[in-house]
């Protein structure tokens, strides 16, 4: 399994749903009014990072 390189900061997320609608892997959902990532589905394409209008998704540099 590839280690996911994206991280959602739920303190920033305002639940617009943009990242969820655009993820080609259906790896994102809305849970308790925050975007939620299912690690194992993500292919690290980075589309969601560019899509978030307020910068809640970042590359996970750890």
């Amino acid at each position: 399994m590839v280690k996911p390189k994206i991280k959602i900061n739920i303190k920033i997320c305002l639940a617009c749903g943009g990242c969820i609608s655009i993820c080609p892997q259906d790896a994102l959902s809305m849970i308790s009014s925050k975007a939620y990532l299912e690690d194992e589905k993500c292919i690290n394409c980075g589309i969601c990072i560019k899509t978030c209008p307020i910068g809640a998704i970042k590359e996970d540099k750890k």
Partner: protein
Amino acid sequence: MEYDAVVVGGGPAGSVTARFAAESGVKVIILERRTEIGVPVLCGEGISQRVDKWNMLEGTRWIASKMDGAKIFSPDGTMVSLSKEMAGNETGYVVYRDIFDQELARRAARSGADIMLNTEVTGLIKTNGKITGIKARRFDEQFEINANIIVGADGVESKIGKWAGINTVLKPYDLETCAQYTLTNIDYNSNYCEFYIGKKLAPGGYIWIFPKGENTFNVGIGVLASLSDSSLPLKLLNKFISNHNELKNGKSIRLLAGAVPVAKPVETVRDNLLLVGDAARHADSITGGGLTTSLQGGKIAGETIGKAVESHRFDKETLSIYETKWKAVFGTKLIRDYIVKEIMLDFDDKTLNMLADSLKDYKFEEFSTLSLVKALVLKHPTLLMRLKPLLKLTDKSLKKA
């Protein structure tokens, strides 16, 4: 629990679908994840005054202000104006989307629809490959509802279509990623909605200022996701506001992030399943507006469900009446405006200035994107050649202009 139809999502598309289904005698329930219908508001809140003719909303509590017209500003500040005087006094409203949505839900309830809030639909139930209901979660309880028809009215992030095997994933060039402030205490007297376009200002989208009355304005931005970057919409919006003489002194009473599909509509019908509103990608590709099509499409969907329940037939063929009808009502408009979006994306700021300049004294006969598009094609037939057949404009009518 058993219902004839389950509507997933209590936005405008879901409530209107449920209302018209209930009015045709259908046992229907709306399942909504939120704890208050319409809240939080994720919308610019502009709607065409055509809504008056549809008997969807009662009273006037949902209206914040009536527009005097629209002003579109090109990158160099050239203004194109569509005013109410030209458009026979029919323009649009800025609404309170929370009250607007609750009004639509109230009508659904009055017609007999059930509503369950705080309820997240988590999957479809399939029996021998056939959709027979939904799984949901409410507080810490999981439960199932059996139904003959499931309606995906679950907005831009829609999962219902995906679960049924319809590809609803948006491409980055088919999504506007948005941010908006509601600013108050602004010393600016305008009842026009304003649109600002330009590659630097809002790549692949626009900035809007919609008057809500009482010195309050919705000021927002949409950027095409394929041209955007992490937090770019919010940064560009902040920049626009801080450079604006009046807006920069405003105080923010609401901030939202948003997403609007500016895509071609998807397949909207399967056996036992319908998609409506943003879930069906029914928003307009030029304006990003999706309220009118949610109302129009919801009505058609509700009536179709009524006929299906009456005849006990829930297959794709029976439900396809919905798709045939919405295509007849607004299908051409959606495709036409998608093509306009594609053409406009190729224009640089210089071309946009030139187009605005050629329309600055134009007398528009109607307050609509259609009249704007028509004017552009009449003035620049070769530039917008691909649109000619869609507008049913003949060479004769083009020469006359």
